[in-house]
C-alpha cells in the first residue's frame, strides 16, 4: 500500500518534469508555471452586429500609452462607441491594480500588459477570451495565449544602446563584452524590480547565460562597476552620455536611435547611438477585455479597432514600438535606423512567472548586497 502510493507519486513527478522540459524546449531546466496557459473554461466574447452606439468604454492603460489626436475619435465615428482612457501608473502598477480589482474592474479593456507580466494577469483571471478576426495578419509568435484572453497589439525590443563617439574602444558585440575590463565603468542599467526594461535586460542575461551562468555574469558586471538606477529616465538622462553622464553604454530600446535622430537638436544626419543586437529582448504588449465588464461586445469592437491599420500605423511614432499587425506600414525613420533584429531573445511567460521573484531576489543579493 505504502509502496504503491510512493510509486504513484514518483510517476507523477516524472510526468511533471517531462512536461516542464517540454514547455521550456530550450534544454535549460527552467521551472514553468503550470496554471498560466490552462484552459480557463470561460465563455468567449463573440463579435456581434448589434448596434453598440451610445456605449461608453473605459480603456485602462499605463502612463506611456499615447495616440495621435483623432485616432480614438475615428473609432467613435465608426461605431458610435465613446472611449474614455484611464492612465494608471507604469505597467507594473496597471497589472497590480487590475489583479486587486479582478472581476470588478475599473475599466472595460486593459492595454499594456506585456509578456513579462502576462501570466500574472492570466492566473488572476483578469480577462475574458476574445478571438479577433484580424489575428490572421499577426505573426503567430506574438500571440502567446492559446485561449485568446489577450491580443497582441505592439512589440519592441529592449536592447543595450551605446553612444558611438563616447565609447572607450570599439562597440560591444556581445553581452560578455559589457563585463570586459575595457568597458569598466561604462555600463548603466536599471533595477529589474522597479523598471520594465531593467527586468528585460535581466531576462536577456538569463536567456543568454542560462540558469547556471547568469549569476556569475552579474558578479562580473558588478566587478566591472555597473551602475544601477531605479528607472529608465535616471539611467538614460542621469548616467548615460545623452544627459551629460559619464557612461557610454545603457539599457534602452531598439527604437531609441530613431528617437535620437527625430528629436535631435540641432538636427543630425544619423543617430549618435547604436544598438547591441545580441542583447535585444522582445517585449510584446497585449490588450484584453477585463472580466466583469458590462460591455463585452463593445470591448471586442475596440480590440478589433486597436488591431486595425488605422490604430496600428499610429503606434510607431507615438509609443516607439512596432505594430503587431503585419499589414501596417512603418515610418521611414524606423525602417532606416531602428531595424528589428531577427532573433531577439525571448522567454516563455510561464517560465518568467514561475521564477520572477526568485530571480529578482537572487539578483538583489548579488548586485545590491
Amino acid at each position: 500500500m505504502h509502496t504503491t502510493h510512493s510509486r504513484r507519486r514518483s510517476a507523477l513527478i516524472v510526468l511533471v518534469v517531462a512536461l516542464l522540459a517540454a514547455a521550456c524546449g530550450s534544454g535549460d531546466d527552467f521551472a514553468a508555471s503550470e496554471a498560466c496557459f490552462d484552459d480557463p473554461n470561460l465563455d468567449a466574447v463573440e463579435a456581434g452586429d448589434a448596434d453598440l452606439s451610445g456605449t461608453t468604454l473605459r480603456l485602462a492603460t499605463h502612463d506611456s500609452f499615447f495616440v495621435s489626436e483623432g485616432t480614438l475619435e475615428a473609432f467613435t465615428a465608426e461605431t458610435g462607441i465613446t472611449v474614455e482612457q484611464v492612465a494608471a501608473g507604469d505597467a507594473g502598477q496597471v497589472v497590480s491594480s487590475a489583479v486587486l480589482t479582478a472581476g470588478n474592474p475599473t475599466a472595460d479593456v486593459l492595454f499594456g500588459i506585456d509578456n513579462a507580466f502576462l501570466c500574472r494577469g492570466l492566473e488572476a483571471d483578469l480577462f475574458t477570451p476574445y478571438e479577433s478576426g484580424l489575428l490572421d495578419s499577426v505573426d503567430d509568435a506574438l500571440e502567446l495565449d492559446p485561449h485568446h484572453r489577450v491580443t497582441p497589439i505592439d512589440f519592441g525590443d529592449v536592447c543595450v544602446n551605446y553612444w558611438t563617439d563616447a565609447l572607450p574602444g570599439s562597440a560591444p558585440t556581445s553581452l560578455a563584452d559589457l563585463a570586459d575590463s575595457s568597458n569598466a565603468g561604462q555600463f548603466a542599467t536599471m533595477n529589474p524590480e522597479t523598471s520594465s526594461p531593467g527586468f528585460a535586460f535581466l531576462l536577456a542575461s538569463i536567456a543568454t547565460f542560462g540558469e547556471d551562468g547568469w549569476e556569475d555574469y552579474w558578479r562580473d558586471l558588478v566587478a566591472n562597476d555597473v551602475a544601477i538606477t531605479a528607472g529608465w529616465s535616471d539611467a538614460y538622462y542621469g548616467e548615460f552620455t545623452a544627459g551629460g553622464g559619464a557612461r557610454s553604454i545603457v539599457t534602452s530600446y531598439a527604437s531609441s536611435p530613431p528617437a535620437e535622430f527625430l528629436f535631435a537638436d540641432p538636427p543630425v544626419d544619423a543617430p549618435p547611438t547604436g544598438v547591441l543586437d545580441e542583447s535585444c529582448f522582445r517585449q510584446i504588449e497585449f490588450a484584453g477585455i477585463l472580466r466583469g465588464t458590462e460591455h463585452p461586445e463593445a470591448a471586442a469592437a475596440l480590440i478589433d479597432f486597436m488591431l486595425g491599420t488605422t490604430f496600428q500605423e499610429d503606434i510607431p511614432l507615438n509609443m516607439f514600438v512596432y505594430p503587431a499587425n503585419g499589414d501596417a506600414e512603418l515610418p521611414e525613420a524606423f525602417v532606416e535606423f531602428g531595424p528589428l533584429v531577427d532573433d531577439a531573445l525571448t522567454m516563455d511567460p510561464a517560465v518568467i512567472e514561475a521564477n520572477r521573484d526568485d530571480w529578482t531576489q537572487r539578483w538583489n543579493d548579488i548586485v545590491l548586497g
Partner: protein
Amino acid sequence: MERHRARLTRWAWYAPLAALLVLYGWPVLELLVRGIREGIDLADGPLTTRATRRAITFTITQAVLSTMATLFLALPLSALLANRRFRGRRAIRAFVTVPFVLPTIVVASAMLATAERTGLTDGPFALQGSLTAIVAAHVFFNVAVVVRTVGGFWSGLAADQERAARMLGDGAATAMWRVTLPRLRPALAAATVIVFLFSFTSFGVVLILGGTRFRTIETEIFRHAVSRTDFGTAAALSIIQLVTVAALVVVDARLRQRLNRPDDLAIDRAIPFASTRERIVGLVVVGGTLTFLCVPMLALLEGAFRTGDGWGLDHLESLTDRPPFLTVTPARAILNSLAFGLLAMVFATVIGAGAAMAIVFGPRRSRRLTDLASMLPLGTSAVTLGFGMLLAFDDDVIELRSSWLIIPLAQALIGAPFVVRAVVPVLRAIDPAMREAAATLGADAATIRRTVDAPIARSAVLSGAGFALAVGLGEFGATSFVGRDPDHMTVPLAIERLLSQPGDVLQGQAMALSCVLTVVTVAAVFAVDRDQRAGL
C-alpha cells in the same frame, strides 16, 4: 430648539473626523483586510529577514537625520523672516515652496548635474547613491515646512517678553534660549513631525538618489505590492509603518499637551533692520539658504535655455504647441494643475481648519482621534492609500474611484495636516482672557469664534492653504494608482512623460516646463498666502 442645536453642535465637532475616516481610514482598512486575507507569512516570510529589519532601521535613521538637517538649515531663515521686515520677505516665503512641486526626477537630475560639477560624485559626501544625497534632497524639499510653520508662528508672537528679558540684563543669546525657544516649541514640534513623516514615507528620492541600494519601508511596500503583487507582505509592512507613525503622533500629542498654554500674540513682531551688521547677517542667511535651494534649480535654467546651437528661448516657445507624447498642450496642463491645486486647497482647508478647531475646542474624546486621523495620511504609503481607494470606492457604495474628484480629494489628505499644524498652535496660544472678556461682554461661543479666534487664526490658515496648494500643484503618488483621464494631465506628469523618451528637444522642453511650473507655483502661493496679520 436650543437643546437641539446644542446636540447638533456637539456632533459637528465629529464632522472632520468622520470625513477623514471615510476618505482615509476606510481605504486603508480595506487594503489591510485584503492583504491579511491573502495571508501574511509571519514566521518565515519576508518580514523576518535581515533585509526588512535593515529597511526599518534605515527608514528611521534617514528620517531623523533629514529632520535634524532641515531644522539646522531652515531655522536661521525662519528667524530672519519672523523678526525683520524687508523687501522681498513675502516672495521668499513663496519661493521656498518651489522644491515641493518639482518632480523628483527633475530634482534628482539637477542634483546629479551639481554633483558632477562640484566633483562630489564619490566619497562620504557624494551627492549620488549615498545617504548624504538622500538627506540633502529631503532638506531641499522640506525647508519650506520649517520656514513657513515656525517662521509664521514666530512672527505672530509679541516681542514684549524678550524685550523684558533683555532689559533685565539677559544677553541676546540667553533671551533666545530662555524665552524665545520655549515659546516656539509648539510650532517647532509641528514642523518636526511633518518633516519627519515626509522623510519617513519618501519614495522617489530614496529610489532615484539612493541609487536603489537603500531600502525603506515605503520602497519595500512598493516592491511587494507592485512588483510582486504580494499584498499580504505589503499589508504587513503597511501595518508596521502605521504603528510607527501612530506612536510618533501620540507621543508628540502628549508632549504638546504640556506646551498648551496661552501666549501674547502680536500683529507682526518684525521690525526693520537696525544696523549694517544686522543687514549683513540677514544677507548671509538669505543668501546661504537660497543658494542651497537655487543650485539645483540653476541646472534647470541651463537645460531650459540651452539649445542645440547656443542659448535661446526655443524650448519655451515650443511649449505653445503640443509637444510629442503629451496628450494636452502645456498651457492646458498648467490650467489642470492649477484647478486640481485650488480644489485640493479648498478641501484641505475645510477639513484641516475644522479638524484644528475640533482638536483645540472640541469635546475631549474627539480631540485626540481627530489629531491622529489628520496626521496619519502624511505617514501612510501612497501605495496603501492608492490601492485602498481602488478597493473602497467601487460601485457598491460610492463610485469615486473612476471620478476625477478623487485626485484633489487624495491631495487634500496630504495638504490638510499642514493646515492643522499651522492653525492648532495659534488657536492654543489665544489668551483665554481675551475670550473671557468677549464672553463677559455678552458674546456667545459662535460669536467669540468669529470675532476673536477667526481673525487670529486666519494667517495660519492661509499659510497652511498655501502648502495645500503646492501639494496639489506638485501631484501626488497615490493618485497615479487610481487612474486619471489623460486630458487631466498635470505639469509634473507632463515633465515626467517628456523625460521618458530619448531626444535633446524633449529634454529641453521638460526643463522649460519645469521653469514654468516654478514661476506658476511662486505666483500662486504668493497670491493665496497674503499673511495680513503679519503684513508679509
